[in-house]
């Protein structure tokens, strides 16, 4: 199986989970950006260009399924992927702490980029009192889930016999 197909299925799976009313709900329920975690995984362990493509495609898919402006998540996730790609050279990506910190960085980049875009195109924003708890909840969930997602996806690549072409290092099982 090619890495393209692998990521296509992974992104489809993440999108299905993320839109599932069985796992998440609107109205103040628990929400986590699983597609961002896939982008984090690709940016940590795969080639630079592959990671950017995954970031853009994951964002585009999320935009198409979302009621937000098309292109918003595509841009924010591409940027997040690039930020991680730039930082990963300076850290030991196998370390859990590094994975957590880079996930936090990706989430903050994604949030900041989307807020900036929304402000630019005059989309009304939530107040800080609403945004802050939602962001904290997302940070917590993302930090908890990021190593699991990385580990899970790494385990998936083994039987499928695919590996990063230009990635730096692989996660240790």
């Amino acid at each position: 199986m090619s890495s393209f197909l692998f990521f296509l299925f992974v992104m489809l799976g993440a999108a299905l989970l993320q839109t599932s009313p069985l796992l998440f709900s609107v109205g103040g329920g628990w929400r986590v950006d699983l597609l961002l975690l896939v982008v984090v995984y690709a940016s940590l362990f795969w080639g630079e260009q592959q990671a950017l493509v995954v970031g853009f495609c994951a964002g585009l898919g999320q935009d198409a399924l979302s009621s937000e402006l098309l292109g918003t998540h595509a841009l924010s996730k591409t940027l997040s992927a690039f930020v991680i790609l730039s930082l990963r050279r300076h850290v030991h990506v196998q370390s859990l702490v590094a994975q957590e910190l880079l996930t936090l960085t990706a989430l903050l980049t994604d949030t900041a980029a989307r807020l900036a875009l929304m402000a630019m195109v005059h989309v009304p924003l939530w107040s800080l009192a609403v945004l802050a708890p939602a962001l904290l909840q997302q940070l917590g969930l993302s930090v908890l889930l990021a190593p699991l997602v990385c580990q899970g996806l790494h385990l998936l690549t083994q039987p499928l016999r695919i590996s990063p072409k230009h990635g730096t290092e692989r996660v240790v099982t």
Partner: protein
Amino acid sequence: MRALTDRWKTLTLLLCFLVLSLLLITMKARMAQPVAVLETWLVAAVMPFQQAIVAAWRSVENVWQGYVDLIGVRNENLRLRRQVAELQAQVHQYREAYFQQQRLRALLALRTEMWPRALAAEVVGIDPSPWAEAVIINRGSRHGVRKDLAVITPAGLVGRTVEVAPSHASVLLVTDRRSAVDALVQRTRARGIVVGKSPQRCELRYVDVNEDLRVGDAVISSGLGQVYPKGLLIGTVVAVRRTPYQLFHEVEIQPAVNLAKLEEVLVLVP
């Protein structure tokens, strides 16, 4: 040298994607046709899977509930285990069917009485954007749904359709920050605009400070704006704050519908 070339390639790709994203945002803001086609295509590709998963999960849930009850029954009376298990499973099925029938009957009554062409729809997905308060329903343009149609339940107003694919549509909930509904306070007929404030609350804006507002007042749609028919219950007032020297009340509203537990809705096709 190789590393430098790779770096340039990465930066070029990044630039291409950023420009493409900005282009898409601009096209979407101007409502260009190709963008709508792309969105429609993606929703049409993903949502049937989601619908199938939801249906399968609900079946498994029914069986699981039956199984859990079966364990209790087995301990209590071994001799009647098989019979009770069958009955329990049936009871669960009937109970679920009964509740569903009650909900559908309420929807049908509402539809027959007030909106004979209204469409019943099931919630099959939620918006993947963590900040968006929107759901996806299993009715689309093929069934007569179009953009900007009001969506309700017997309890009250849910929101309006914002994106429509052939067999699915996105519904922006009244609690979303982008939602705005022209409204009236039922008791005093004071006018204002209901906007999303947080995932569980709305806010009634632009109500004159001289208007008499009380906690518990019902807020209904005014019918202005061509999207929401007049008289739909939006919610009830849960807090009124009067700030000195302000022109308007600060009014907080609890939506009439429990948006976290939406299952079936009615799309008001005119």
